[in-house]
């Protein structure tokens, strides 16, 4: 099974490379370079912070787009074009097929995020090199090349794994358009999920409060993954927090992938 899983995952990665998904990196690099130039012209003292902010936000957005738009087509495209027939009649199994697809996209995202992170650090290094005085002012709050950015990037990655799992799940039974809408919907809801936990404070109906509470547990809670503002301001995110949030994200993604495997293994390919 690990061999089959690895092969399927490798081919998801290969497909994304050949379908030019990694071209986003060029766009990202251009964005960062032009932003650093513009920010240098416009602001005084805040340059580094803005670049960090922009860099992390762009990583999150680019990652989200790759995760959703690649994820929703992963299984649907195979079923729609019937290429799935050739794979599933071989000793592969439907469940490892889904798992392989997930691992492949997780690998694609990892490579993407790693490259984008390196680009952000590179821009920061160049900015500090061009203007050494800038580095001194920035040190007041946080070093220019701050390793703490990595904790924010890591949590963005784990959050994207949850989003990927959701996209993959919807992809096992619905069209890309609907899957993308549902995944984006859950992404947005996921950032306001915490409000559902205290819904009884704003409504009188007990039923509504119970439903809201149930939804709070079922829907993904994505707000804790966003520590961008904290790290940009030089705050250290506790290792325990990162671990706990990572654990939650991985468990949630695993549960959704398991559900996707269940749906897919019961499907008739008409």
């Amino acid at each position, binding site marked *: 099974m690990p061999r089959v899983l690895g092969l399927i995952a490798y081919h998801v990665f290969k497909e994304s490379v050949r379908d030019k998904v990694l071209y986003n990196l060029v766009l990202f690099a251009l964005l960062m370079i032009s932003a650093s130039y513009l920010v240098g012209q416009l602001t005084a003292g805040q340059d580094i912070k803005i670049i960090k902010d922009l860099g992390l936000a762009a990583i999150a957005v680019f990652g989200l787009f790759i995760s959703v738009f690649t994820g929703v087509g992963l299984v649907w495209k195979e079923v729609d*074009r019937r290429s799935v027939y050739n794979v*599933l009649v071989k000793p592969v199994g439907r469940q490892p097929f889904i798992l392989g697809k997930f691992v492949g996209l997780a690998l694609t995202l990892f490579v993407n995020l790693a490259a984008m992170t390196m680009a952000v650090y590179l821009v920061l290094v160049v900015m500090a090199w061009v203007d050494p005085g800038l580095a001194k002012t920035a040190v007041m709050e946080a070093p220019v090349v701050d390793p703490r950015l990595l904790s924010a990037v890591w949590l963005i990655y784990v959050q994207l794994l949850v989003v990927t799992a959701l996209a993959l799940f919807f992809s096992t039974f619905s069209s890309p358009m609907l899957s993308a809408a549902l995944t984006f919907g859950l992404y947005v809801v996921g950032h306001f999920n915490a409000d559902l936990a205290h819904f009884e404070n704003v409504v009188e109906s007990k039923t509504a409060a119970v439903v809201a509470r149930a939804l709070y547990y079922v829907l993904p809670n994505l707000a804790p993954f966003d520590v961008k503002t904290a790290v940009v301001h030089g705050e250290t995110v506790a290792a325990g927090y990162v671990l706990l949030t990572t654990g939650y994200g991985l468990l949630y993604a695993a549960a959704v992938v398991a559900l996707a495997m269940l749906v897919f293994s019961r499907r008739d390919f008409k």
Partner: protein
Amino acid sequence: MIAIETEGLTKDFPVGFWRPRPYRALDGVTLRVEANEVFGFLGPNGAGKTTTLKLLMRLVYPTAGRIAILGRPAGDPGVQRRIGFLPEAPYFYDYLTAEELLTYFAGLFGIRNPDRRTRVSALLDRVGIGGERRLPLRKFSKGMLQRVGLAQALINDPEVVFLDEPMSGLDPIGRRDVRDIILSLRDRGCTVFFSSHILSDAEALCSRVGMLVGGKMVATGSVSELVAFKVAGWDLVVAGVDPDRLGALGPGVRAVVSMIGGRSALDLAPECEPERVIAAVRDLGGRVVSLNPLRATLEDVFLAQVRASQAASPAGRMMPEG
């Protein structure tokens, strides 16, 4: 040894969104295919051939019935290692080349280099994919994709091969190549199960055929069993009699055609006794030049089965609700 066996295989698909009703795509199909047999699965479009193949491949689950391939249930990983499948109008990952696709699929069977490299190359040669093997599959024509499909179905050197409409989309050369491959598979002891609506292919290749009409098996047997003893009529050529008088020989004479040299060709119905007509011709002072039975072709048998089935169930295949 029985290679493929189904018993009472039935598949209903729900039709409609709000109040789905079952549509019976396959109705109690029972068949047996012996090992080392080339079995032709025939039927008109929409008969349920592809559904049967999908059931055998575990791509859809049966509503009822039993399937055994090489003595084990369909979808069993042990069985999947020993079979090959070519879907109808196959589609592959268009970002891969033919060589990469076959290498990928060989990997799924755990075939490693150097065996993998040799096998991929030999198979692509065998199906006639030459220099194109390093082109992305998106540049392939339908016929070339069909050839790649056949190659991938044979990548694991299977004992049983399932081919869904293997000749479709192929030019005459491609069809001849596929026929040769099927025959070579048979010669090396492989069981071939292929669906087709092109009867000449089946007649040329199959040791046995099954006919599926409206989701039901209507006939199974060797081609000779199905067609040999079914005489579609008689072709009688006589001389020395006025053609106008031949037309009055009885209801069995379907047509009389005048030929050169004072001869006439009589088209006799299958139920007609040629001896009686010959005696009548002699009474009229004529003589018999030749008498030939008109053998039914597989197509005649097939068309008769389709017509009979349509007459038997004019209501179609929608099942009652509930």
